[in-house]
C-alpha cells in the first residue's frame, strides 16, 4: 500500500582496480567506481540527465571487452573486472582532452583543465593554429549568452531542454562534422524560438559556452571572483512548488542562481522565475 513495502534490492559485486565493490543492481560502472573512491572524469554526463554517451572521457577497461566502455552508462554485471588506471584508459582520455583542447576554447572549463593536467594532455601538439569556429558571442538578452567557441557538443543542453527535464525541445544539433552546431529551429533568435528561458541548459553546460549574463558581465569586467563567493541554500519565492535555490553571492550581491541536483523537488532544474527572478532583491546592484 505504501512505498515502505519495497522489495529487497539485489546487489552486484564487481572489481574496481583490484578492490571488490558491491552496488545495487542497475548501477553504472561509474557509480561503482565512486563507491570504490575512484574519480571518473566526465563531460557529457550529469547526475540529472540520461547518459548521452557523447564524450568518451569516462571510458574504462573491462576485462574480456574488446573496446573501452563508457562507465557512465554501462551497467554493472556480476564479476566484472574493471581497470580505470591502465595506460590504454589514460591514452584514450588524453586523446579526447587534446582533441577538444585543440579546437575549442576550454579556458572556463575548470574540470577539463584539471583533468587535462592530470592526464598530461598537450593540445598544442596538433599545431598552434587549429581550426576554431570563430563566431561572435551571441548576446540577445539579459539572461544568458551563447559562446559557440566554447561548445564541445556534449548534448547536455539539448537533453535538459528535451525529454530529460524541460520538454521544450527548443534546441538540437544542426549541421554535420565541423559545421555541427547546437541551434534553435532554423537558427531563429531565442525569443522567436520555443525557448522558455528556464536556463536549465546553462546550468548543465560544462564549458561556460552557455553562461548567465550576470556571470558574463562580471567576467568581462574582470570582476568574477568565484573564490570569494558564498553559496546559500534557500527556497524560491515564486509559486508553491518549493524549489531549492543556491544563491551565489559575491560582495553581498547575488551573481548567479543554481539548484542542487540531489534535491527531490528540482533535480537541479528551475524555471525562468526561479533562475532569473531574483533581481528584485537588489534592484540597483548592477550599477
Amino acid at each position, binding site marked *: 500500500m505504501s512505498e515502505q513495502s519495497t522489495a529487497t534490492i539485489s546487489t552486484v559485486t564487481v572489481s574496481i582496480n583490484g578492490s571488490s565493490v558491491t552496488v545495487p543492481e542497475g548501477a553504472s560502472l561509474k557509480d561503482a567506481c565512486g563507491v570504490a573512491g575512484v574519480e571518473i572524469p566526465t563531460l557529457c554526463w550529469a547526475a540529472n540527465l540520461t547518459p548521452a554517451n557523447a564524450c568518451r572521457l569516462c571510458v574504462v577497461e573491462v576485462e574480456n571487452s574488446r573496446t573501452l566502455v563508457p562507465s557512465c552508462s554501462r551497467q554493472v554485471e556480476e564479476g566484472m573486472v574493471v581497470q580505470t588506471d591502465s595506460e590504454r584508459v589514460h591514452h584514450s582520455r588524453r586523446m579526447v582532452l587534446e582533441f577538444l583542447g585543440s579546437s575549442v576554447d576550454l579556458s572556463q572549463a575548470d574540470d577539463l583543465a584539471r583533468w587535462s593536467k592530470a592526464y598530461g594532455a598537450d593540445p598544442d601538439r596538433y599545431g598552434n593554429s587549429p581550426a576554431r569556429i570563430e563566431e561572435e558571442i551571441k548576446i540577445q538578452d539579459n539572461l544568458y549568452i551563447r559562446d559557440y567557441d566554447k561548445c564541445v557538443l556534449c548534448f547536455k543542453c539539448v537533453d535538459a531542454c528535451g525529454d530529460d527535464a524541460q520538454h521544450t525541445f527548443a534546441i538540437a544539433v544542426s549541421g554535420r562534422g565541423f559545421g555541427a552546431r547546437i541551434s534553435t529551429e532554423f537558427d531563429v533568435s531565442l525569443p522567436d524560438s520555443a525557448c522558455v528561458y528556464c536556463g536549465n541548459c546553462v546550468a548543465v553546460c560544462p564549458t561556460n559556452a552557455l553562461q548567465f549574463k550576470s556571470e558574463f558581465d562580471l567576467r568581462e569586467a574582470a570582476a568574477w571572483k568565484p573564490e570569494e563567493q558564498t553559496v*546559500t541554500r534557500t527556497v524560491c519565492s515564486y509559486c508553491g512548488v518549493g524549489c531549492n535555490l543556491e544563491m551565489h553571492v559575491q560582495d553581498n550581491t547575488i551573481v548567479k542562481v543554481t539548484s542542487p541536483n540531489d534535491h527531490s523537488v528540482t533535480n537541479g532544474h528551475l524555471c*525562468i522565475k526561479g533562475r532569473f*527572478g531574483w533581481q*528584485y532583491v537588489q534592484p540597483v546592484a548592477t550599477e
Partner: protein
Amino acid sequence: MFGAGGGTVSYEEIEEVDVILLWGSNAREAHPIFFHHLMTGLDNGATMFAVDPRRSSSSKFADVWLGLNLGSDVAMSNTVAREIINQGLTNREFIAHSTTGFEAYAKSVEPFTLEVGEQITGVPASAIAEMARAYATADKAQILWTLGITEHHNGVDNVLALCNLSLLTGHIGRWGSGLVPLRGQNNVQGGGDMGALPNKFPGFQDITDPEAHAKFSELYGVDLPDKNGLHLTLMFEAMERGEITSAYIIGENPADSEADIEFARATLRGLDTLVVQDIFMTRTAELADVVLPASVGWAESDGTVTSSERRVQRVRAAVTPPGEAWHDQDIIGELARRMGYDWGKPTSEELWDELRSLSPLHIGMSYERLEDGGLQWPCPDLDHPGTPFLHGWLWEDDLGGHPLAPFSVVEAAGPKEELSAEFPIRLTTGRALDSYNTGVQSGGFDSPIRYGDALDVNPADADRLGIADGELVKVSSPRGSVEMAIRIQPEIPVGLTFTTFHFPELVDINVLTSDAWDKKSGTAEFKAAAIRIDKISANAGEGESNG
C-alpha cells in the same frame, strides 16, 4: 480535505501514476518544476485529461483536452460521477468501508446524464465518458487543480465535487493516488499551517476547540479570542461598514490584487489607520499612514516555508538587507515591545521550536532535521520520517479512529455574473510563465518572452468585432473600463477572453473582475466576469495594427 488542509500526495508519486486529471490548472506555466514530475509521469505512460476552458500550454500535453464552458465544473464532475456509477465502476468496498452519504450523493448526480453534461459543459459526451472510465478503472489516479477551481463564487463546491470523485473510486489515501491543490505562493501552505487563518491556531487546531484554546492561552499568558475571525473578503466588507477602522498589512498588495479593485482601494483609503509592512513601496504601501520596510523573506532572512506537498524547508539569508529594512519577526517583536510585551529577540529557530511545542504536525521537525531537503507533515516525533501521502487511515480496518469520509451533495451553479446583451463576452484571468501576481517581484528582471497584459481573443470573435492583433481596445464590465491590447489566439474558445494580471500599472485588470465571492472560503470570482469589447475609434485600430 477530510480534516487537513494540504495536498494529499508527494510530487514524486505522479511519476508513477496511471491517470491524471488536470482540472483548472495551467501548471506548465504556474508550477513549472512540478510539471517536470508530471511530464515524467507522462513519459512513463500516464494518460492525462486536461479540463480547462482554455487550451492552455498544459492542456497541450494532455491526451484529451476537455474545453468546458467556464464555470461548469460541478456539472462536469457530477456527470463524471453519474457515468462512473452508471457503468458500475465505483469502488464499492471502499465506499462501504470508508465513506458516508453515498446514497444521497448518487441521487443528486442522477440527473447528470452524459447528454445533460454535454449540454451544460459544451464537452462531447464521448470525451466525458472516456475520462470517467479512465479515472475509475486506473490503478493509481490523481486530480490536480489550482485557481481555475477555487477562484469562483462556488469554489468550495468545486473542490468538494472533485473530492467526491476520489471517494467514489478510492483514489485517495494510497501511494500514487490522491487530490492535489497546487499552491500558488511559496508559503501559502505554510501560512495556513501556521494558523494565518481566521478560524485556526497553528497546526489546523480550531480556535473554537476549548482544549486548543486553553493550550495556546496558557502558553501566551492571555485569554485568546475564542470566536472565529474574519477572512479577507469579510474584512473589506467590515471596513466598508466602518466596523474595522485600522489595518496592518504584511507582504500583500490588495490595492492591486483584489477583485473589483476600485472598491478595495476606496475602502483602504477610508481607514483611520493603515500600516503596511513590505519590501517595496507597493500601491498598497502608497495608501498607508505608516510603512515598515521589511527584509526579503527568502533571501535576506532565516525561517521556513511549506510547499504544496506539505514539505517544510528552510530559507536562509544569502545577502544582508538594505538600509533600515528589518526581518518581519523583528518588526513584529518591536511593535509588541512598544505595546508593553517584551518578547526579547528570538531567533528563527527559537520561534520554530515554539511552534513545534504547539503543533502536533510539526513536533519532529527540528531545524537540524530540516537542514537538507526538508520534511513533509505530519511529522509527530523526532524519529518520524515525515508523511509522503495523507489519509492512509481510509484504508485501515478501524479508520484509525477517524469518522467516515463524507460525500458532499453540491449544486451545479454557473458563474454569478451572467452574460447579457450589454456584456456578452466571458473574461477569465490567469498567470504567464515568466511573471507573478501583481508583478512587484517579477517586474525586477527583463524577460525576453514577456508581452505584457493583453486580451486573448479567438480569431472568429476578433473578425466579428472588427479588431486586429495588437489593436488597443476598450474593455468594459459592469464595474468599469480599461484600455488594453488585443492578442489574437486560436487556443482561446469563441466567446471567451483571457488575460494575465501582472502589470496593473499598465492595465488595471481588476477594475473589471467580478465582485462575487464564495461565502464558504471568502475567495473572489476572479475567473468569471462578463465584459464587452469596444473599438476605441474606427481609424485608430487600423492605423496601429500591423499584424
